[in-house]
Every structure is written in structure tokens, then in C-alpha cells.
């Protein structure tokens, strides 16, 4: 395996960082040494932090002419051997969709941090939103795999950015850190440990770079290693040769791309349970909303109410078996979101339990009192 333990880039200890700064530091700790970006609120601090820190750690930073170019150059750098990243927000994330599909098809490890703001369109650039959930999975044409993670704290902006790189390298897949403006601009204590585990892409001289490895993830060489690589977003065989009208090649490739993530979902999907064992009403929450939800659930537990919470740390692939299990135990599932019910719809796919969405799209975070009020009505 290509796991190894490395020293953290920052000295161990506590830091008082914003979520955006933490994501930049997490990337550096994970070994990211190529960053291309384009200014956009509320994610720009990530790029500004990288611009300073890459001078110290020896990375390549470039501000590109738009988000399309940013992601394109990140993919190019990844094939040149880099751990590479970009960060953006809604409008830029929209422009990146074609490139995300290309990265998925060419099995290019890349990390995109999307600091979600209130949409649609330009929306409210400085206000919070959580409306990019479905776009992260379905934004580009065709079926393709991605992994999307929803951090809820500054600590997780750091830890989960490291995790995002590990997953990208491990599965050769685009990984999206689907954070919200409220977490990106949150400032709180973050702890850096002395050593972290990182995964570096597997290499195997002469091996088919698009063939099925043992677990569906082929090794990945880099340009300049004499492998005479053929990389293309068109349908291709195990060696990257275009086969644009062969039904068998197309069927095998699209199935493997899907299965390499779905068959490994136990290893990928993370979640946390809070008081969910004996709860009648379970809140399913993620990102910043999970902070408000936990506050509400704990307050109501003190009143003796049987409420609990499941926090989804991984959004894609979706925690289908977890939801099936929760749905068989709970009387009601409450899903508060800063969108019009994007995760609630997914929850409904996997359980027949009574599901109550709560949708707030006013550019504000959902207050714990709001959640408490809703839960009281459900009990």
C-alpha cells in the first residue's frame, strides 16, 4: 500500500484559524504542491493563503484567467505528478463542471474546495448557502463518480482536506470538499498533530494506466516517466487508446468507474451518531447545520426528549445502508438543510420512514432555536 506517515507541515499545537485558512493548511500537509485558482467570494482566502505559503513550502501557485482554466491546469498538473487543488464557490463551481467530468473519466486525482454561498446564480455572494449538493454529483454530463465531504468545523476543514487528498490519490477520483461559507469564514481553534497518514498514488511501471487493478483502481504514472501515456476524456481502453464506438469498452469503463467507488463505500463513507440509539426522532444533518442541530438535540435531551442526530460527513457516495438502518429504527427523520431539500430527497430514496424536510434558503445559517421549534412539533 502507498500509505505513509509524514510530519505535519505546521508545528504540532493549537492554531486559531479560519476554515478557509485551515483548508489551505490541510492541503499543504497532505502534500499539495500545485494550486490554480480564480478569485471568488467566499473562497478567495484559500488562494491568498496558498500564494504566501507555497513560497515557503515550495509549491507552484498560479492565478488563472477563469475557473475553467484553473481546474484544467490542476488536471494537467496532476498528470505531471502533482497533488493539485483549486477552490471556488457556486458560480466558479458551475464553470468547473465539464472539467470535473473529465477528471472522473480520466481518473485524475484532484481536490476542489467549494465554499458554498447563497445561490442561484450570483445570489448573495457573501451569504451562506448549501445548494451545491446535487451539482457536486450530477453537474457534468453522464454518470461519473465523485466523492464529496461536508466539514462542520475549522478542525475538519483541515482534517478533511487531508482526507480529501488521500481519497483522491487512493481512488483516482475528483474529491470535493463541500463546505459552506459559514464554515469557511468561521474562526476557531484547530489542533495540528505531529504526524499524519497520507496516501500517494500507486505507481507500477508498464502497467495499464486505465486497466482494472485489484480493486478497480489502476496505478497512475506521470508524464515524463517514459510511459508514452494516452490520456483522453473520450471512451478508451486499458491503455488509454480511444474506442469511441465500441459498446463493450464503453460498458466496462463506465461500470468500473462507478464500482471502484461504490464497492469501496464502507471505506469511504464517514458519519457520526449522537443519541441516535433510542431516539424516536432522528435529525439527519451535515455541515454547519449539524452544529445547530447538535445544540438543539442536546438541549432537548436535557429535557428528557428522545431525539438524536446522525451527522453525514460524507455526502457522496451517499450513505444508503446507514439511512436504511436509521429509517427502520426511527419514527420520524428530520432533515434541516440550507437548500430546498437536496439531501432529504436522497434520504427518501432509501427509507419509507416519515421524513420531514426543513428548508431555509435566506442566506442565513439555521439557528438552533429554529430546529428546536421544529422538533417540538414532531414529538
Amino acid at each position, binding site marked *: 500500500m502507498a500509505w505513509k506517515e509524514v510530519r505535519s507541515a505546521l508545528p504540532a499545537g493549537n492554531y486559531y484559524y479560519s476554515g478557509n485558512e485551515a483548508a489551505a493548511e490541510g492541503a499543504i500537509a497532505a502534500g499539495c504542491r500545485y494550486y490554480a485558482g480564480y478569485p471568488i467570494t467566499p473562497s478567495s482566502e484559500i488562494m491568498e493563503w496558498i500564494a504566501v505559503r507555497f513560497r515557503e513550502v515550495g509549491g507552484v501557485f498560479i492565478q*488563472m*484567467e477563469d475557473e475553467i*482554466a484553473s481546474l*484544467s*491546469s490542476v488536471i494537467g498538473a496532476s498528470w505531471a505528478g502533482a497533488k*493539485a487543488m483549486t477552490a471556488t464557490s457556486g458560480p466558479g463551481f458551475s464553470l468547473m463542471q465539464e472539467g470535473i467530468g473529465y477528471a472522473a473519466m480520466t481518473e485524475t486525482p484532484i481536490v476542489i474546495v467549494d465554499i458554498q454561498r447563497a445561490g442561484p446564480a450570483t445570489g448573495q455572494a457573501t451569504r451562506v448557502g448549501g445548494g451545491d449538493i446535487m451539482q457536486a454529483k450530477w453537474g457534468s454530463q453522464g454518470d461519473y463518480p465523485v466523492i464529496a465531504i461536508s466539514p462542520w468545523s475549522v478542525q475538519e476543514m483541515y482534517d478533511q482536506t487531508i482526507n480529501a487528498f488521500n481519497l483522491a490519490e487512493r481512488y483516482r477520483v475528483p474529491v470535493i470538499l463541500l463546505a459552506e461559507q459559514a464554515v469557511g469564514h468561521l474562526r476557531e481553534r484547530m489542533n495540528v498533530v505531529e504526524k499524519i497518514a497520507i496516501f500517494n498514488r500507486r505507481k507500477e511501471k508498464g502497467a495499464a494506466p486505465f486497466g482494472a487493478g485489484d480493486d478497480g483502481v489502476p496505478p497512475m504514472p506521470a*508524464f*515524463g516517466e517514459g510511459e*508514452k*501515456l494516452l490520456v483522453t476524456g473520450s471512451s478508451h481502453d486499458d491503455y488509454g487508446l480511444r474506442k469511441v464506438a465500441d459498446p463493450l469498452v464503453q460498458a466496462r469503463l463506465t461500470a468500473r468507474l462507478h464500482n471502484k467507488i461504490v464497492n469501496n463505500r464502507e471505506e469511504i463513507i464517514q458519519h457520526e451518531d449522537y443519541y441516535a440509539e433510542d431516539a424516536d426522532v432522528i435529525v439527519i444533518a451535515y455541515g454547519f447545520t449539524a452544529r445547530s442541530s447538535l445544540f438543539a438535540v442536546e438541549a432537548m435531551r436535557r429535557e428528557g426528549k428522545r431525539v438524536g442526530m446522525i451527522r453525514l460527513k460524507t455526502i457522496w457516495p451517499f450513505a444508503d445502508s446507514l439511512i436504511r438502518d436509521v429509517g427502520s429504527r426511527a419514527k420520524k427523520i428530520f432533515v434541516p438543510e440550507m437548500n430546498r431539500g437536496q439531501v432529504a430527497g436522497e434520504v427518501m430514496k432509501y427509507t419509507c420512514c416519515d421524513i420531514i424536510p426543513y428548508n431555509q434558503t435566506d442566506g442565513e445559517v439555521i439557528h438552533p432555536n429554529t430546529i428546536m421549534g421544529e422538533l417540538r412539533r414532531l414529538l
Partner: protein
Amino acid sequence: MAGDMEEYLRPGVRTPFCPGCADRILVRLILRAIAELKIDIDRMLFVSGIGCAAWIPSPHFNADTLHTLHGRAIAFATGAKLFNPELITMVVSGDGDLAAIGGNHLIHAARRNTDLTVICVNNMVYGMTGGQVSPATPMGIFTSTTVEGNRERPFDLCKLVAAAGAEYVARYSVSQPDTLVSSIKRGLETPGFSFIEVISPCHIQFGRRNRLDTAAETLRFFAGKCLMKDEAEGLSPEELRDKIITGEFSNGRNQAD
């Protein structure tokens, strides 16, 4: 193909180009430039976009090739080159890919003077998709989307890229093979952004809609329009109408002043 160039071709690959396609000539001329410079092709990275010209390096060239999204070849190449400056990076794509959908990346890479050699294969039409008008189609030309003749002015791509700050800018036709090979060599040897526009006519999508029935006729039609830069000097705008001026328009001195 000459003996020492055969190893530059990927074994077992059948060319997708139509019989008589000028891009076939260009396959050979690019490889000739690389062979004459004695570049180890394993040190090279070829990046292309979408369209007929993008197939020149991929899959023909037996080297690292990155066949990217439509219009984005230069942006992909920028990432690879900046992260590994040892890669001798060449972009090969068409006029629609580089100048229409990818026009923004083209001028910004020229402005940054990124160390890339860009071969813009200009057939003045969208060949692969059926012969639609491109930003390089001359006025009056019939295409599948300009049925009464093109009424829009084309880009002078060399002027555009030179003005944006490119180190080396040239235009030649496949009908000027030796000068073109020298120019590609100059481009590869020039540190900074090199842009070579190659007139590479398409007799299928361009020719047959404009009363040029064969590949040879189409080639001759364009060859007849090409003037070397010094031949063009002193000619009136009237005499230069419809002419294609070939030569070097910026050769390393662009940045000096």
C-alpha cells in the same frame, strides 16, 4: 516515413484523417522538426483539444499525450508545464479550439509568456463537426452555417497573439514544408510562448463548399494566396486583400522593449 522518425509514431495506430487531409502532412512536419533537433520524444508532452487537429499528436505520436476538453488544451498544458518544467510541452489544436472556445486561454498564456509551443492548425472551418464557420474563416466563404458566405471578419491570429506578448509568432502553410519545419524548430527552441499558425486546408468541409473539388485543388488555392512577409511589403491594401502573409511576426525581440 524516414527511418529515424518511425520510432516517433505509436505502433499499430490507424490514422483517422481523410485521404488528402493536410493534417497528415503536418504529422510528418512536426516530427521532422523534433527529429532534426534530436529531442528525446520521451521528454515531450503533447496536449491537444477537440477537433481534427487535436488528433495529430493523439494517438499518432509515441509520447505522452493529453487529449483534453474542447478549448482547454493550453490551460491543461500550463498546469503540467509549470509543475514539471522539464517537460517540453507542445500544444497542437485547431483554429476553432484555440481561437474561439479557447481564445481566452490563448491570449492569457501569451501574456504570461508561458514556455509552450502552440501549433494552431488553421483549416478555417470546424472540420470534425461538419464544416461550420470558425473565427478564422475568411469573409465570403461558404460553410454549413454561412450559406450566403461568411460576413464576419476573421481574426488575424498572429497579430492577436503577438500583441498579447508571445515570444515567438509565425505563420506558414503546409505548402511551405521546409520553412515550416524551421519555424517549428525555432518555436521549440524559444523559451517562452511560441505560436505557429499553420495553414492546413480541409478539402472535405471547406473545399467542396467553395468549388475546390479535390485535395490538390484546395492546397493549390491556399498556396496561391500565401505571400512571404517581405513580398508583401510595399503592396497596397487592395493588392493584399485575400492574401495570407506568412513569415515570422515576433521572434524573441517582442519582450525587449
